[in-house]
């Protein structure tokens, strides 16, 4: 058996060059998408660079899946246009059909064998049948499944995690320009999740695939993504590496507004334009301390427990997650600073932010 890289090379002899290296692979303009008259996606403008890894984070119902379906050209936007590699594209266009592939959160396997599931896309592309077997074996090994054991199985003879990996293999075998993953690890076991993450990343490294992933696994997202886009109510929050806080808000003294948390602490914010709107506290405006902070005027602090620490190589900083009542806050600390503080998960910490830093969406 040849190595998987060799087979893919022979399968796709004229490996595309990233001729659009500099241009954006996606450009979205004034995109609106309605589901049953409800606005699911509302994006003025968004660009994605080729060969990048982009993370979409946000609460359930924030429009991540709807956006991924638009980017996959599975759905058309209700308004606006999407350019793919500089050209306007709509579902079923030849320019996107063989380029973009979406892995939905819960995979659907065709009612046929694992082999035929993975070979389906190859058949559509007219790849010679004699090359299917090798490509399927390689794709299965890429997602950590042995072809001997799995290729002949039927669609109903797989566990949830195995099905998800087979579905991923069916995309990877196509070497798409863009791979869109919708919460790929949300409903699978830990081992499958690990494997799925590794395989997706490997594909990007190997073929320069542009990866866009919606995930609640923010630690992973921050670890691998060049760019993280928070979404809320169908909107993308540009330059927003921030903590999203949902209302309802109620007025407090001195023009401040507040929300009382489950443990009795209060989040203080500036005046919102509506009671139910979402506030964002940018990561950069939050500071962390181990002792109770001395507040400057117009600052506010909250007490919580440090739950996670993760290294973000792109900014050489440590992402810290702090649990406060039922909320999770994340913030970024320069690595050196974090080392001095001797942080460890489980620690009692304080976060401080200026009330004026709160942004509204």
């Amino acid at each position, binding site marked *: 058996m040849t190595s998987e890289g060799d087979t893919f090379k022979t399968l796709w002899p004229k490996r595309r060059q990233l001729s659009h290296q500099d241009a954006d692979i996606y450009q979205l303009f004034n995109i609106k998408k309605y589901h049953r008259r409800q606005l699911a996606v509302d994006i003025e403008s968004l660009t994605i660079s080729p060969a990048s890894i982009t993370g979409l984070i946000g609460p359930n119902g924030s429009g991540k899946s709807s956006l991924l*379906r638009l980017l*996959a*050209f*599975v759905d058309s936007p209700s308004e606006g246009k999407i350019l793919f590699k500089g050209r306007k594209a709509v*579902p*079923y266009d030849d320019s996107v*059909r*063989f380029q*973009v*592939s*979406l*892995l*939905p959160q*819960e*995979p*659907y396997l*065709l*009612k046929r064998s694992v082999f035929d599931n993975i070979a*389906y*896309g190859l058949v*559509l*592309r007219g790849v010679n049948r004699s090359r299917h077997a090798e490509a399927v074996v390689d794709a299965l090994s890429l997602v950590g499944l042995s072809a001997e054991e799995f290729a002949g199985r039927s669609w109903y003879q797989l566990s949830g995690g195995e099905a998800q990996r087979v*579905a991923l293999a*069916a*995309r990877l075998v*196509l070497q798409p320009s863009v791979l869109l993953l919708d919460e790929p690890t949300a409903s699978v076991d830990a081992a499958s999740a690990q494997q799925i993450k590794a395989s997706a990343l490997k594909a990007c490294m190997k073929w320069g695939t542009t990866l866009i992933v919606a995930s609640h696994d923010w630690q992973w997202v921050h670890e691998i993504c060049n760019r993280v886009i928070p979404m809320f109510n169908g909107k993308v929050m540009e330059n927003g590496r921030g903590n999203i806080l949902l209302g309802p808000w109620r007025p407090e003294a001195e023009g401040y507004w507040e929300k009382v948390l489950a443990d009795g602490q209060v989040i203080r914010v500036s005046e919102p334009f509506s009671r139910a709107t979402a506030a964002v506290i940018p990561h950069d405006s939050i500071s962390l301390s181990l002792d109770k902070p001395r507040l400057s005027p117009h600052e506010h602090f909250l007490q919580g427990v440090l739950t996670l620490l993760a290294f973000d190589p792109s900014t050489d900083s440590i992402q810290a997650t702090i649990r406060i009542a039922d909320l999770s806050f994340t913030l970024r600390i320069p690595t050196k600073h974090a080392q001095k503080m001797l942080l460890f998960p489980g620690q009692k910490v304080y976060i401080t932010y200026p009330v004026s830093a709160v942004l509204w969406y």
Partner: protein
Amino acid sequence: MDYILNGLFQAIQLLIHGDAETYSAVAATLKVSTGSMIASILIGIPAGFLLGHHDFPGKKPVRTLVDTLMSLPTVLIGLLVYALLTHHGPLGHFGLLFTLEGVAIGQTLLALPVVIALTATSIESMDEKLRITLISLGADRKQVVLSTLWEARYGILAASMNAYGRVMTEVGIAMMVGGNIKWHTRTITTAIALETSKGQFVSGIALGLILMAIAAMVNISLSFLRNRS
């Protein structure tokens, strides 16, 4: 009870000795039911797909109408087709009354609502995720339709079997439109009706058993196909 056992015995004898009259009725039954099934599958599966896959204004009333037509009485279809095919009727000049073709037309009308409604139901029950998956893997519109039909194949097979059962066993249309003409349009069911009215229970039961044997053979071969796929 004796005549049931006798019927069984006689059925075997009729088949073994190649009774020409019995074989003529069996052949007529197979001809009309095959013809009407081919026609209702060719029309019914695409129509059922459209009904199940697409949203269009007035879809609900159409769906209700098709569901209602599933329980259309065969004598009413017989009456309708007779009225259309009779000499004075709008289609009288084709000379289809009292022919197997005429019966096949009536039985197509009988099977069509069943095929359409059950195909639509099985297409509707296919997941939105299927469409997303097919498009994501590079399918164009035509391939999406074909693959969706293939994914729904068990449901569609069940729909066809259901329709086949109705067509094989109905007597109203065959009697009224076909006229139960010996050697010509006499099917197994109309022959049974005749034998019974003559008081010939034994040969009636023999024909009934043959009918059931044909139905069993069709079912067994289809389930064999299903297991293989």
